[in-house]
C-alpha cells in the first residue's frame, strides 16, 4: 500500500454507490488497486461500518448537508468566523489531545468524493458572486492532507479557488503529504498551514504524525514552490519549563522559512470540554495541571497563565518578525485586551480585522 512519509496506509475502501463514478472516487481506486473494495448502498452505511470500521479503512461517501459551514468555534469567546469546507472526517494521527476521537464515533477516514461537484454548485452560488472576503479551511474535522497522496484533492481545490481571490483557502495539516501541491501551480490565495508545537509536546502527544523538523522541511519546500504558509501553535501546553521549548520552535520556524512567507501564526492554549475531563487528564502526564471551567464551559488554564504564555509567544515572534500577523484562537475579550492591547466588540469585527490583515493580495 502507498505509504510515503507519514501517510496513512489504506487496506480497505468502502464505496457508497452514489459516489462510485465521481472523478475523485475513480482516482482513488486507481491509486489503490490492491485495496479491498466494498460497494454499499447509501442506506447501509451504518451496517457496513459496523463490520469494517478501522483506521486503515477509507470510506468514500456522499456529503450530507452543506459543504461549507461555520467553524463551530465557541460561545462567549472571540472567534474569527472561519468557514469549513467539509471534505471528510477523522484523522489517524491520533494526537493525544485531539477531541475528534471523542466526537466522532468511527475510526475510518472518510472522504466526501462528491465535494468537487458540490463546490461548483454551492460555492459559486453562495460565495463567488458575493464580493465579501472569506477564509475557508478543510482542516477542522480531518487533516487537510492526510490522504492527499491518493486523493490529490488539493490540486482540485487549488485549481478551483485560484480564480476567486475573495476566498482564502487554508489547507491545515501535520502531514508531509505535499507531493500533489508541489505538482500544482501555486496561488496567492492558498495557504498551507502546519500545526506546530514544542518538541516535547510533539514527541509525547503527536507521535503518529511528523516531527517539527520534518514539518518545517515540508513547509520550506512548499514555500520554495511558491505558496505562502501559516503555523498554528495549538494546543500550547504549559508544562514546567515549557517556555524554552516553545521559544526554540519559534526560532526554528524563522530559521527555516522566510518571514514574509509566513502569512499568519495562531496561538491557543489547551482546552477541553467538561464531559471529557474524567478521561482527558489521564491521557498524558503533560495534561495534569490546574484548569478552571471558563465561561464557555470548557476547561482552560487560569487566565493569568494564558495571558503570560501568549505575551511571551507574541514578544518572541515579533523579535523575529515585528510585522508578523498573530491571532488567538477561541480566547476571551479580556485576554485579547491584555495581550494585544485591543479586543473586538463581536466576531464580525474580529473577522473584518483578520481579513484586512491577510488579504494582502487584493
Amino acid at each position: 500500500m502507498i505509504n510515503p512519509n507519514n501517510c496513512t496506509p489504506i487496506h480497505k475502501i468502502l464505496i457508497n454507490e452514489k459516489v462510485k463514478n465521481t472523478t475523485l472516487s475513480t482516482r482513488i481506486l486507481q491509486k489503490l488497486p490492491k485495496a479491498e473494495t466494498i460497494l454499499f448502498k447509501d442506506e447501509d452505511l451504518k451496517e457496513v461500518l459496523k463490520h469494517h470500521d478501522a483506521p486503515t479503512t477509507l470510506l468514500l461517501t456522499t456529503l450530507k448537508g452543506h459543504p461549507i459551514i461555520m467553524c463551530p468555534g465557541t460561545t462567549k469567546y472571540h472567534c474569527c468566523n472561519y468557514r469549513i469546507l467539509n471534505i471528510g472526517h477523522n484523522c489517524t494521527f491520533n494526537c493525544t489531545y485531539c477531541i475528534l476521537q471523542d466526537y466522532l464515533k468511527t475510526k475510518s477516514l472518510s472522504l466526501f468524493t462528491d465535494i468537487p461537484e458540490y463546490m461548483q454548485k454551492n460555492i459559486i452560488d453562495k460565495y463567488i458572486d458575493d464580493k465579501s472576503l472569506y477564509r475557508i479551511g478543510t482542516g477542522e474535522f480531518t487533516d487537510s492532507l492526510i490522504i492527499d497522496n491518493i486523493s490529490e484533492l488539493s490540486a482540485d481545490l487549488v485549481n478551483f479557488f485560484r480564480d476567486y481571490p475573495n476566498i482564502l483557502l487554508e489547507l491545515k495539516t501535520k502531514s508531509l503529504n505535499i507531493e500533489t501541491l508541489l505538482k500544482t501551480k501555486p496561488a496567492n490565495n492558498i495557504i498551507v498551514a502546519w500545526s506546530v508545537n514544542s518538541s516535547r509536546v510533539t514527541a509525547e502527544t503527536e507521535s503518529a504524525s511528523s516531527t517539527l523538523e520534518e514539518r518545517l522541511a515540508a513547509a520550506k519546500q512548499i514555500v520554495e514552490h511558491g505558496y505562502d504558509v501559516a503555523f498554528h501553535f495549538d494546543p500550547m501546553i504549559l508544562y514546567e519549563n515549557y517556555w524554552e521549548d516553545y521559544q526554540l520552535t519559534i526560532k526554528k520556524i524563522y530559521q527555516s522559512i522566510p518571514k514574509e512567507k509566513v502569512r499568519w501564526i495562531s496561538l491557543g492554549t489547551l482546552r477541553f470540554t467538561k464531559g471529557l475531563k474524567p478521561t482527558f487528564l489521564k491521557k498524558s502526564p503533560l495534561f495534569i495541571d490546574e484548569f478552571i471551567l471558563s465561561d464557555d464551559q470548557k476547561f482552560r488554564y487560569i487566565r493569568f497563565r494564558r495571558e503570560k504564555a501568549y505575551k511571551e509567544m507574541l514578544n518572541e515572534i515579533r523579535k523575529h518578525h515585528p510585522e508578523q500577523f498573530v491571532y488567538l484562537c477561541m480566547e476571551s475579550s479580556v485576554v485579547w485586551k491584555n495581550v494585544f492591547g485591543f479586543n473586538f466588540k463581536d466576531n464580525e469585527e474580529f473577522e473584518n480585522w483578520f481579513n484586512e490583515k491577510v488579504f494582502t493580495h487584493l
Partner: protein
Amino acid sequence: MKKRYVFLTKGLGLVYNLVLMIESIATKYRLNHNQKKEAEEMIAELMLKDSSLLLNFFESFESDTNQISDAFITWLRERRYPLYSAYHKKLSLLLANIHNHNPYFRIVYNDNFESDEYEIAYINPSTSSKELAELKLTEKKEYLQELATLIKGNPND
C-alpha cells in the same frame, strides 16, 4: 502475556487502594456524598501526578475546627489546585472585607477569574440606599483597589 497480567494486577491494585483510601478518608473526615466525590476526583488526579501518593500524605492535614469535612476539602483543594486556591483565598478575603455584612451592595465577580472587572449590585434600588452604598464603597476604597489589582493579574507577567 505475562507482562500484561502484571500490568493489570498493578492497575487493579492501584484502583483497589484508591477505593479503600477514599472510604477511609470519607469516614475519618466525615465527608458527605458530594465531598467524597470531589475528594475522590482530586486524589485520583493527584495520583496521576504522583502515583506514590499514599495515606501518609494526609497526615499533614491538621484541623481543630468542628467543620472538619469543609476544612479537609479546602486543604485538599489547596494541594490539587495551589495556584487557583491562592487566588481564590485572596479574593474571598477581599470580598469579606468589602462586604462586611453590609445590607446595601454586593460585589459581583465570577471566581473563575475569566474577567478582569467586577460589578457592584445594589441590594435596594432606592436612592437613599444607593447613597449609603456609595458611602460604604468609599470607605472600602483600598480593598476595592486591591481587588482590581488581583483580578487584573500581574502586569509584569
